[in-house]
């Protein structure tokens, strides 16, 4: 196809602002999908995505519109996948920026808009859901125009639900977006903006050809990881798979690589010809590293092999997932897993439970630390259990958080951020009512219950987005929890010195509530090294008897005791103390507000 008749675009939006519905309407309008076979939200393939209303994996769909070839590149909608979003945007020349006519501009709208601007994309702003009774399209249009430095009259008004204005949006894409400008005669350079795994065909790469031609059966080379493979099949999605002979400069499509290992092909890498290929890769490749870690343990220790197999399978589709075996005295055999962020963690956990039918215990999440032990070499620590007690310096990841709230909540948000060791950067009035606050915060402070706190303290009005900005030194210590004198590895945590006392106390108090009384006194302590910072005691039971037991009661009492014993068998051992699993779960999830 002549590049001048190609338009490559993404749709970017805050969660629930209607991106998927708009994608569906576009497919319908361009006859890519007949109404009858129209499933709601065709682009979100995974069951989980459909239920959560979010998009995890990007895909690209080619449609025709008035003689033009439009490639819609779907982007993940969440902060954890910023890198993937940025690669998807790099594959485009422009984007539809969707804003909910009732909700207005949100933190993610901004983050994605800025990301698009950084990638030099032409932005076509769209106010969606104008059919809603509470819609205020003029205000939303004014807000979004203000951010983009655009004219409010150029902001389109649509309803993806009814289809109103969607054709105009497609016309605007054709008019306003530049055509691709790659060199068709140069050596092949194709950007991998997404990948997935097919059980039979191996790794599938979604690519945007920038320069040159990608031909079926050609031997090609992924430059960053130096992986060579044959392009077993090339084609595009419409939305079904359509194999073709070649993808040329400016086009978007897929390649079957035949690779059996997803880690050999990374999003952001450049594919070129194995022989006489390009010398310079496309810019922007980054090795994404997990930042949030948690221990995953099967509640039934027999399920360990199933958990391992499930993680192996998930990893095929999710190159960012990291895991290594971990053994806990308290929880047995499991895995320490690394995630891009909290949502990523939740998704992995839900997929393990749902698709693989596993019951999991998930420890409180922590972040990656860079630790310089005294007299040793710097190491990266992913688990509190590995955190050395004697250290010279420790660094923790920091984020740049953007928070948008109605102006009356500014004080509340500042207070929360101060409690969380945040440092104020600046604030902007986005409109008369809404304020953007920029803060820098340790990632560790948001992995627990930050999001929940933010939502509850602002009565649900705050929207939040973040970006990891790097590692910084911090005064951090490991707090151990001792139950009946034994340290419980799964409960150790790493805390800033100023908060160690309070957090230790809170955890100890929580444990006191959760640990049922035993046959002996159970001291619970929080300690830094050998210094105890908080202590509680679960008093021993003084009586536990079945009052009467005569001829008519025996069967019933026997069954009662048998049930009690069966319950004991399911208990987790904390040192010499037995704890029902649910109680352990409650303790581990202390402040786990990461669920959305």
């Amino acid at each position: 196809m002549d590049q001048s008749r190609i338009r490559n675009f993404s749709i970017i939006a805050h969660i629930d602002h209607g991106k998927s519905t708009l994608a569906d309407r576009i497919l319908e309008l361009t006859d890519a999908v007949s109404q009858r076979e129209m499933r709601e939200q065709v682009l979100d393939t995974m069951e989980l995505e459909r239920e959560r209303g979010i998009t995890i994996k990007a895909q690209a769909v080619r449609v025709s519109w008035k003689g033009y070839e439009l490639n819609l590149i779907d982007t993940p909608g969440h902060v954890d996948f910023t890198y993937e979003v940025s690669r998807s945007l790099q594959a485009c020349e422009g984007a539809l920026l969707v804003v909910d006519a009732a909700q207005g501009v949100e933190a993610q709208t901004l983050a994605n808009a800025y990301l698009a601007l950084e990638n030099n994309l032409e932005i076509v702003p769209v106010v969606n859901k104008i059919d809603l009774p509470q819609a205020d399209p003029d205000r939303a249009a004014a807000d979004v125009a203000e951010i983009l430095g655009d004219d409010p009259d150029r902001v389109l008004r649509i309803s993806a639900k009814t289809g109103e204005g969607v054709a105009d949006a497609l016309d605007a894409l054709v008019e306003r977006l530049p055509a691709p400008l790659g060199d068709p005669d140069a050596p092949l350079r194709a950007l991998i903006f997404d990948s997935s795994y097919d059980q039979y065909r191996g790794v599938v790469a979604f690519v945007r050809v920038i320069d040159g031609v990608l031909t079926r059966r050609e031997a090609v080379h992924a430059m960053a990881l130096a992986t060579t493979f044959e392009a077993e099949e090339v084609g595009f999605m419409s939305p079904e798979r359509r194999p073709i002979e070649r993808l040329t400069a400016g086009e978007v499509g897929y390649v079957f690589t035949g690779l059996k290992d997803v880690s050999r092909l990374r999003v952001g890498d450049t594919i070129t010809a194995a022989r006489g290929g390009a010398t310079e890769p496309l810019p922007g490749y980054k090795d994404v590293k997990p930042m949030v870690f948690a221990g995953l343990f099967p509640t039934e220790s027999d399920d360990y092999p199933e958990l391992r197999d499930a993680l192996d399978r998930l990893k095929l589709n999710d190159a960012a997932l990291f895991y290594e075996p971990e053994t806990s005295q308290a929880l047995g055999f499991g895995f320490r897993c690394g995630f891009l962020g909290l949502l990523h963690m939740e998704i992995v956990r839900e997929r393990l439970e749902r698709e693989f039918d596993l019951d999991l215990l998930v420890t409180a999440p922590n972040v990656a630390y860079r630790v310089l032990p005294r007299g040793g070499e710097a190491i990266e620590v992913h688990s509190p259990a590995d955190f050395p007690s004697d250290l010279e310096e420790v660094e923790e990841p920091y984020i740049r958080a953007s928070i948008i709230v109605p102006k009356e909540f500014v004080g509340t948000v500042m207070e929360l951020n101060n409690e969380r060791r945040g440092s104020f950067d600046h604030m902007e009035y986005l409109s008369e009512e809404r304020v953007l606050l920029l803060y820098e915060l340790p990632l560790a402070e948001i992995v627990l219950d930050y999001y929940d706190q933010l939502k509850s303290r602002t009565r649900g009005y705050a929207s939040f987005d973040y970006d990891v900005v790097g590692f910084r030194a911090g005064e951090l210590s490991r707090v151990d929890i001792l139950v009946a004198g034994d340290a419980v590895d799964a409960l150790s945590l790493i805390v800033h010195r100023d908060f160690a006392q309070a957090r230790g106390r809170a955890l100890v108090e929580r444990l006191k509530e959760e640990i049922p009384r035993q046959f002996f006194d159970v001291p619970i302590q929080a300690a830094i090294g050998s210094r105890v910072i908080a202590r509680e005691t679960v008093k021993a039971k003084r009586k536990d008897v079945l009052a009467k037991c005569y001829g008519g009661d025996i069967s019933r009492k026997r069954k009662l005791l048998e049930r009690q014993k069966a319950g004991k068998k399911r208990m987790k051992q904390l040192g010499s103390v037995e704890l029902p699993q649910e109680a352990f779960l409650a303790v581990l999830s202390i402040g786990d507000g990461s669920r959305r």
Partner: protein
Amino acid sequence: MSAGVRHLYVHMPFCAHRCGYCDFVTLVGGDGELHGRYVDAVLAEFELERSLLAPRLETVFLGGGTPTFTAAGELARLLAALPPAKEVTVEANPETVTPELARLLSRDGVNRVSIGAQSFDESLLSVLERRAGPDDVRRAFHHLRDAGFDDLSLDLLYGIPGQGPAHLERDLEEALALGPEHLSCYELEAKPGTRFTHTYGDELARQSEAMEGYFERVVETLTGAGYRWYETANFCLRPELAGGRDLRARHNLAYWLGRDYVGLGIGAVSTVGGERWRNRPKLGRYLEATSRGERPPREVEPLGEDVRRRERLLLGLRLDEPVPLAGVEAALDPVALARLTQLGLTEQVGSGLTLTDRGRFLGGGVTAELLAF
């Protein structure tokens, strides 16, 4: 061995009133005519089961309900028709015990009476909806003594809503002042579904911590007064204070030693050989079946050897004498046993296993943990 059961229980369900906390099979009221038909039915069932029983019984126990609420003539007829035994116990509510009744019991072979005193405090008795006042309890006791009874037991309840430590102390003092041979002390249980639990359940839950030490107090006081804490909830005067007599309740001891027993009457349970059955609690169907010379409707539960072993263990550990390990080993979890022994809750005495004093206060949980299956 099924031809030799030596323990017989007879359930007499009639009561003047159903107390709020009660979850036994009881029937309120009824006249002499109905009581008579019930006695006929029990005797008919007795005939049907006679072949299970040994020629000479060791114990007979009439429980309820309120056996002494049964019309006097009918009660006398029943007692006269039942075979004699070394120990014949009847449960009595204090307000039903008149001098005549006491003489009747004595005449008809009863040699032990268990009096449902529950408390000596007017207000606590009214919480329990008991008909008797404290004076009725004392009066009943004296009538029975006057009729020649030298083996009397008192039932006491503790943990009654509103019962403070001083109340408990006074109840124990009052009971001891009567000099009973035997005492049964139970913690009041809020049994699900009773009217009492509906009214007092929350209050009981609230005061449970404050009342945690009551059991210890009961044991301390009674053992201090010369009683043997021979079963979790049962105490008897030591032989040296009772002319050398062993005053343990022999009928109940049979349960705790895992012996077979036959139960007659509605809701009564029997355990014979590898089987346990429970008569259904409906009076009408009981009367109907027995009048036709048939066994009443029953639920039957087969008892495997493993279950019987487990029961011998859980029942035996309620006693102050060690359970012989021979034969129950397979029911024991050795890891739990080692842990509990280390915690000072169980101990091996010779070839038997017993709970330490602390272990007995925690007997339910300790026993549960010991069970292997």
